[in-house]
Structures are given as structure tokens and as C-alpha cells.
């Protein structure tokens, strides 16, 4: 490892612009002649749009146009789609209701757009939007899962009888039933996985620019995957043809999944820029983010686990209802199915699993992938189940887990996933040591003497990253392939540009990806520029989500780099009159082994471009590209342990210690990896203690601002103690697994298990607010 190579905690190249205020986010983009959009949104959760009167608004100062859903229909703009097909138990396809970008007839959640005002200034657009008179006929509302599936519930979409989108299952029902019949003990548990709002700090935004002469569109947008946005906007929404659409995702202020999807507002801005023949900017405010960014989680689950007389798990039965909101967002269908139920084996050897998942429509904001996406729900369920079982079976929770750990790899679970490698005992040991697990009973007793209830909670998570072999996801219903692409360009002066289809919105790719090049060539990361987020520059890309950028995106760069190195070695050998097999690359030079002959990288590059003296038949230039499709998911895993105290007088919890022991395979930049873990832990702890997106029975959101929705703040959280154990991922040449979501996946169960340990029973749901905890203690 060089000082800037793989494994070094290099400070980030991108930081200078962020700490000096020179970051360039979408709302910072200003174009000549730019107009501003403001949307007219439904105040009702379910209503028929009887009429829209925009006459008064159209006369207001600065107003250029007021556009409605019927004009979208007239222009043959397509409905929003869900791109992952799920098939129900009975063989029928999922029931997708139509989702127009602006509702021409029916609104199904509070905040759904019905019209947009385009004006000279943002304030003028906002003022005029207030003057658009929409006449609604209110309809009955279903605001949660139970209401949606109740007999006689109002139907949201004619396509989905009973508001059911699909009723899906996985696993072997017969084998699972048999396991329960012969079980020595059965443990059952009901859990709620609370709905969350992603709340990336930068609200979504779009600047759309239509060039009337070239009939060409440019869209600056807050996207985790600009190429996917271009594909969907052209192929499915019919807004612009793909070769006439450039999508640029510049600096993006966090995503956490919420910026994967192509939303109505961005699509309308693009369409409107042609309607008014001027650039159109829309920047969402935080209220709009709460109303319209795809939410996360929202599951109700009943589960049972069967044990034999030796406390070995013999079966798991799960029934989950998931709320997908009013419409099916882009990847919503995959989250409670293939990203959730396939992880239900956890770190455990479970011979038989059967899971059923029913998804429903409700009059709420659409739900899709949010950091972890299905895997936090699986991990939370399993780890609460193991904790509950340990107490019911009267065994130590760590020992019950250890007894059931998978220890032989590869391991085929009963729910599709084939774990390639891992060492679950190692991470459990590391976490137990870090928190002094053995000393806990004494600490608990001491706390008790001081009037405090102390608890300790474990969570041994596993997740699947690096989504994934295109052939495999295709067979499961995915509408896209999930490879990644990269291009490595060595310039004639020897500097290097790497163009990647991954997108960095906080992950530090500009540094980590450059570290790989520095490592391979023995040069400084300052000679390397990482280019991403622009469909006119980067050949293609599937973007960043599911912790895939290192395992898939960086491997694509490595594959392109290997081609560059092979060609460069041929050129160097030719120049040095040596055999290609004798050329090694060290410290930015191509050397002939065993001699003092060498040629520096810039001279090799120059030779490639002058092309005066290349091997016979070789094309000029030094630039290669690669598409990389992985052979399997990767499987990060680890143990989190939380120790905390509950004040029985107030129900308030205070952290004593939080330790995380993760196995992410090879660490590319430990500083960045730890930062990813910290952020994930905060989101998981936020779910456990603070965050909850609440709708009342009328479908009105009651937590739609930072005044009402409790975001984790600095004094809500402890400092974290992290450690790492390592088993290298055999599925990619870098040995990396992925670290972006683990914290959010594993931490919520550790917190709740600690509180339930403290209060002595497990009747507690997230978020465990002081009010809920107090009532759990005092009844």
C-alpha cells in the first residue's frame, strides 16, 4: 500500500470545493432566460379533480404558463412506472395503477401535483400557484395497511382489486410447516417497521433547458443515476428521445435511495422547458420533500421461529404486509420481496424458511428503497426474534446466535442467496470484546442501585450489496441490467481521466477511485481526475445505490485499467526494445525487469498519441473502456452491540456505548469506510428512537417538516466505537463487499434489543420515544 494507494486513509480530493462554498449543486445552476416552476399540489389524500381554473393565475405578474395534467396527456407523455415485475403466488402479474406526473382526474396522496406555474421569478410562480383554483370532490381515504385491506375499503386503483398490488411468497412452505410440527419450541413475534423519510439535506431540484434549434434537451438534476434517468425519461415517459437528452447530476447533496427515482417534478420541468421554449428551474422546498420524496420501510410483520431441543433453529415462517403508498415508485416492488425476504436467513443456518409478502396501496406518499432497502427490515425482524427467543429459551443471546451461525462457506440459504464468505464468530467476538460484554451484569447491577435501568442489545446483521448479476436480477423481474461501465483515458501528457457510471453524492468516489489508479501505476492521486454524473461525458452507467460502487463500479474501472496497462506495456516494450512480458509498472515508470531500462508514463502516453513509433498494427491512443457484470452479490456482515440506560421516571434513553464490528472485505479507504458506517448508524438509530412518518386517518401527513419529524441531531447520538474483521470477497478482484448501508441495516435492532433488555419485556415498537418507553415500563 502506497501513501495514496488502496487501503490508505487519504483525505478527500473533493473536499476543498465543499468546505470553501464552491460545490456546484443543481440549485446553484443559473441559465440565461431561466424561468421558475412552482407546483399546485393536492391538499387532499384522495379526491376527484372536478376542474382547474387557472385564468386568474395566468394574469398575475411574471406568469408565463400554467400547465396541467390534461396537457401532459395531450402531448402523449407517459405515466410513471415501476421497473421491477413481481408475480403473485397465483401466477398473476403485479397490479400497477396509472401514475400521471400531474393528475388529470384523481389525486391519491397529499402533495400530488395537479398543475405547474412557470413564471419569471420563484416568488411570482409561488404567488400564482396560490391563485390556481382547483375544485376537488373528496373521496374516502385508506391511510394505512390495515385500512387498505379491510373489507369494503375504498379502491384506490381500478387495476388493483382490494388495494392489493401483489401477494408473493418465497421458500418451501411444506418443509417449513414440517419444521414447526416437530419443533421443541416456537417463538413468535409481531413487529412494525416504521415509515421513514430519507431527508437528504439537499432537496430535489431540476434545471431543464430545451434548445429549439437542435431540438435537444439538457436536464440538470439531483440524481444518483443520471443515465437511468435519461433512459426512463426517453424510453418510458416519452419526454425526449435518448440521443437528444443530456442528463447532468452535478454535486448532489445526499441521496440514500431517494434520488434514484425519476419523479414527476423533474419530468414536468423537462417537458415544460419545451412548452415555454426557455430554461425551467424547479427546486423543491423541504415541505415538498416530505410530501413527495419516496418514503422508506412501512412493514407490518408476524413471524415465528421453530427450535429443536438443542436450541438450533429449524424453521422460520414470516408474513409481511408492506405499504407502497399511492403509486408504485420505480423500484418499489423489489424492496419488500427480493431485497427483503432473500435476507431472512440472516447469519443463521435455517433449514426451512417460508415468507409471504402482500403489498398494498394507501393514500400516502409512495414508498421505495431507502438506505438498506428491505435488508434493514429483514435484519430488524430476525435480530428482534433471536433476542426474544434467547429470553424465552433462557439462554444468553450471544450464545444462541453463535450456536446457529453459518460457519461453512459457500452457503446456500433456502431463500435464493448463496453466501460466498464470512466469519460471523469473528465479528461477534470483536464487538463483545469492545463493549466488555462479560462485565455487563456488574454494570447493570450498579446502574440499578442508582435508579437506572441498563440494557444491552445485540444485532448480528448480514446484507447483500453490489446488486448484481444482470442475468440473475433479470430472472427475478428487474427491468434493467445491473452492471457498471467505466472508461480510463490516459492523456498525451500522462495525466489520467477516469469516467465512471457510478455517481458520488457523498461517498468520496473522486478520492477512492483515484486511489486505485495511484496504486496500479504508482502515481499521485492528483494526476487522476474522476469524471461522473454527465451522460454526455460518461458512456453509460447504472448509478450508485445498494452499496454497489466499489464492488461493481470500481471493478469496472479496474477492468478498463487492465486493458490500458496491457496496451501501455506493449508500447513500452516496443520503445525499449524489450519483451512485453518483462515490463513491470513501478512509480509511474515502465521498467524492464532486471535492467536499468525504463520509460516514464508520460512518454508512453505521448508515444501512443504521436503514433510515430508504435508496434505494427496497433491503433493510436491510450484509452479503454469496460462493462463489468458481477457474478454474485457481496455479503457484508457484522455485529453491533448497544448499551444504554433508561430513566424509569421519564422513559428517556441515554447511550452508554455503541460498538460496531463489520466485515466489509478489503477496506479501500478506512477513513471513508468509517464515515459511511457512522452515517448509517445514525439513520438506524434515528429509526429506532426518533423518526416516524405519521399520517392521520384522513391521510394528512402530520410529520411533514423538521419541526415535526425528528431528525437525529448531534446530541441525540453517541460517538461510535468501530472495528473491522476481514474475509475477502471472492466475487470481485478487489475483494470488497460494500459499506454504505450496513450501519442503517444493523443498528435499529441493537437499540431496541437494549431497551427491551432494560425494561424487561419486548412489547415496544420503533421509534422508542420517551413517551412509548415510559408507557412500556408503567403500562
Amino acid at each position, binding site marked *: 500500500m502506497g501513501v495514496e494507494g488502496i487501503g490508505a486513509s487519504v*483525505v*478527500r480530493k*473533493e*473536499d*476543498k*470545493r*465543499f*468546505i*470553501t*462554498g*464552491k*460545490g*456546484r*449543486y443543481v*440549485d*446553484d445552476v*443559473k441559465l440565461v432566460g431561466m424561468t421558475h416552476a412552482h407546483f399546485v399540489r393536492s391538499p387532499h389524500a384522495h379526491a376527484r379533480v372536478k376542474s382547474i381554473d387557472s385564468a386568474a393565475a395566468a394574469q398575475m405578474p411574471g406568469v408565463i404558463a400554467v400547465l396541467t395534467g390534461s396537457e401532459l396527456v395531450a402531448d402523449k407523455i407517459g405515466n410513471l412506472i415501476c421497473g421491477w415485475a413481481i408475480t403473485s403466488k397465483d401466477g398473476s402479474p403485479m397490479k400497477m395503477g396509472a401514475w400521471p406526473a400531474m393528475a388529470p382526474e384523481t389525486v391519491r396522496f397529499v402533495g400530488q401535483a395537479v398543475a405547474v406555474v412557470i413564471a419569471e421569478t420563484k*416568488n411570482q410562480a409561488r404567488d400564482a400557484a396560490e391563485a390556481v383554483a382547483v375544485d376537488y370532490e373528496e373521496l374516502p381515504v385508506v391511510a394505512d395497511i390495515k385500512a387498505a385491506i379491510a373489507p369494503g375499503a375504498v379502491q384506490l386503483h381500478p387495476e388493483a382489486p382490494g388495494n392489493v398490488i401483489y401477494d408473493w411468497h418465497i421458500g418451501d412452505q411444506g418443509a417449513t410447516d414440517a419444521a414447526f410440527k416437530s419443533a421443541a419450541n416456537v417463538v413468535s413475534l409481531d413487529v412494525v417497521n416504521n415509515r421513514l423519510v430519507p*431527508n*437528504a*439535506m*439537499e*432537496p430535489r431540484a431540476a434545471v431543464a433547458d430545451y434548445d429549439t434549434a437542435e431540438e435537444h434537451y439538457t436536464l440538470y438534476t439531483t440524481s444518483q443515476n443520471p443515465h437511468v434517468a435519461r433512459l426512463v425519461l426517453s424510453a418510458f415517459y416519452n419526454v425526449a428521445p435518448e440521443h437528444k437528452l443530456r442528463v447532468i447530476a452535478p*454535486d*448532489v*447533496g*445526499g441521496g*440514500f435511495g431517494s434520488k434514484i427515482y425519476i419523479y414527476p417534478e423533474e419530468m414536468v420541468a423537462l417537458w415544460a422547458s419545451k412548452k415555454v421554449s426557455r430554461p425551467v428551474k424547479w427546486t423543491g*422546498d*423541504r*415541505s415538498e420533500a416530505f410530501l413527495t420524496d419516496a418514503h422508506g420501510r412501512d412493514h407490518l410483520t408476524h413471524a415465528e421461529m421453530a427450535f429443536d431441543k438443542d436450541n438450533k433453529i429449524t424453521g422460520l415462517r414470516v408474513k409481511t404486509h408492506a405499504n407502497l403508498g399511492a403509486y408504485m415508485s420505480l423500484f418499489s416492488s423489489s424492496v419488500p420481496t427480493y431485497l427483503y425476504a432473500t435476507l431472512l436467513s440472516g447469519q443463521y443456518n435455517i433449514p426451512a424458511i417460508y415468507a409471504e409478502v402482500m403489498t398494498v396501496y394507501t393514500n400516502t406518499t409512495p414508498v421505495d428503497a431507502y438506505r438498506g432497502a428491505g435488508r434493514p427490515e429483514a435484519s430488524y425482524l430476525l435480530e428482534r426474534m433471536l433476542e426474544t427467543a434467547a429470553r424465552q429459551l433462557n439462554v444468553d443471546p450471544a450464545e444462541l446466535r453463535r450456536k446457529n451461525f453459518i460457519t461453512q462457506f459457500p452457503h446456500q440459504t433456502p431463500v435464493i442467496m448463496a453466501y460466498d464468505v464470512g466469519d460471523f464468530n469473528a465479528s461477534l467476538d470483536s464487538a463483545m470484546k469492545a463493549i466488555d460484554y462479560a462485565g455487563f451484569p456488574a454494570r447493570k447491577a450498579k446502574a440499578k442501585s442508582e435508579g437506572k435501568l441498563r440494557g444491552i442489545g445485540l444485532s448480528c446483521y448480514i446484507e447483500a450489496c453490489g446488486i448484481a448479476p444482470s442475468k440473475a436480477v433479470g430472472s427475478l423481474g428487474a427491468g434493467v441490467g445491473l452492471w457498471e461501465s467505466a472508461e480510463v483515458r490516459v492523456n498525451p501528457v500522462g495525466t489520467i481521466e477516469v469516467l465512471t457510471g457510478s455517481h458520488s*453524492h*457523498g*461517498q*468520496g468516489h473522486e478520492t477512492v477511485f483515484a486511489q486505485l489508479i495511484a496504486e496500479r501505476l504508482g502515481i499521485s492521486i492528483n494526476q487522476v481526475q474522476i469524471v461522473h454524473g454527465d451522460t454526455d461525458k460518461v458512456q453509460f452507467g447504472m448509478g450508485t445505490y445498494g452499496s454497489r460502487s466499489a464492488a461493481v463500479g470500481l471493478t469496472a474501472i479496474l477492468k478498463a485499467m487492465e486493458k490500458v496497462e496491457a496496451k501501455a506495456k506493449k508500447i513500452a516494450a516496443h520503445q525499449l526494445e524489450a519483451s512485453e512480458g518483462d515490463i513491470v509498472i513501478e512509480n509511474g515508470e515502465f521498467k524492464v525487469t532486471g535492467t536499468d531500462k525504463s520509460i516514464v508514463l508520460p512518454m508512453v502516453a505521448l508515444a501512443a498519441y504521436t503514433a510515430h513509433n508504435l508496434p505494427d498494427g496497433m491503433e493510436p491512443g491510450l484509452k479503454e473502456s469496460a462493462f463489468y457484470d458481477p457474478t454474485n452479490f457481496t455479503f457484508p456482515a457484522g455485529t453491533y452491540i448497544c448499551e444504554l440506560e433508561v430513566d424509569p421516571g421519564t422513559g428517556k434513553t441515554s447511550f452508554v456505548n455503541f460498538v460496531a464490528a463489520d466485515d466489509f472485505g478489503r477496506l479501500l479507504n478506512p*477513513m*471513508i469506510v*468509517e*464515515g459511511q458506517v*457512522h*452515517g*448509517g*448508524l*445514525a*439513520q438506524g438509530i434515528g429509526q429506532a428512537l426518533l423518526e416516524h412518518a405519521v399520517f392521520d386517518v384522513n391521510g394528512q401527513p402530520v410529520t411533514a*417538516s*423538521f*419541526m415535526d419529524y425528528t*431528525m*437525529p*441531531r*448531534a*446530541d441525540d*447520538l453517541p*460517538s*461510535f466505537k468501530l472495528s473491522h474483521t476481514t474475509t475477502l470477497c471472492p466475487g470481485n478482484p478487489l475483494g470488497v463487499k460494500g459499506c454504505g448501508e450496513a*450501519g442503517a441495516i444493523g443498528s435499529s435492532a441493537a437499540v431496541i434489543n437494549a431497551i427491551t433488555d432494560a425494561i424487561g419485556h419486548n412489547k415496544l415498537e420503533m421509534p422508542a420515544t420517551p413517551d412509548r418507553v415510559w408507557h412500556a415500563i408503567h403500562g
Partner: protein
Amino acid sequence: MSTIKLTVNGKAVSAEVEDRTLLVNLLRDHLNLTGTHVGCDTSQCGACTVHIDGQAVKSCTVLAGQANGSSVTTIEGIAKGDELHPMQAAFRDNHGLQCGFCTPGMIMSAIGIVHRHGGNLDEATVRHELEGNICRCTGYHNIVRAVLDAASRMKVAQAAE
């Protein structure tokens, strides 16, 4: 409409703005100082924090007119040429930022914290004082380390002056 005259990052500026214009919009839209960000609409997130006459203030809670005649410092105005402010350097060195969106407000708030507390900062104080700034990426762990690091760097710098 009103004419607002103020000093921003040491330079006298004036702008003709609607009376309802917030200071943050004056900075971003009229003066092109886009380092100051808007992350919410309820004065909760702190991404818009600037200094007005040396005090850390959320610029979304101040009308541009209220800042008339004052001296405003933004994230663009705290480095001395190529020399970063110690707080900026500490955020970089401690990996106190990821997506960078909350960062300008965090840095401006954090400088205010150090100014108010001098060298008498500990983790609990920093965490409490950062309550008005929301970060979704870092879990605050490295932000807290950065502020404590910067506090000692600023103390050293002050002692040297």
C-alpha cells in the same frame, strides 16, 4: 422593492430586492454566493448559517432588509486566499463532511461555537451547541471531532497572534 446596502466578505455591495427577500436569497440569487445553502423551510437545518457582525445566524430567518448596514461573512469569505480557515481544514482532515450540503452551515456555526466557548470545549458541549444544524451523512461523529480539533488549532493560532 428596497435597496439593501451591506458589507459581504469585506466588500461593500448593494442590491435592489423585494421587501420579502430573505438574506439567504439575497446572498444566493443576487450576489451569486451559492455556498450558503437552503435545506429546509422552517429554520431547523442550519445549512444557511452565516455570520452577521460576527454572530452565527441562520440567514433564512433574517430579511435582507434587516441585514441592511451590517457586515456579513459567508463560507466563501473565511479562508485567507489559499490558506483555509482552521475550521475548514479540520473538517477536511477529520472527514467531517460527505455530500457537502450541510457543510458550509456547519462550519459557520462551528466557528461561532468556538468563539463563544473559547478553548473550553468538550464533546458534550459541541454536540449540544450543534443542535441547530442537521447533517444526514456523517452521524456527526467526525463533525464533533473536527470542531474539537479546530478549537485547539484556533487557540494555537490566536496565541501566535
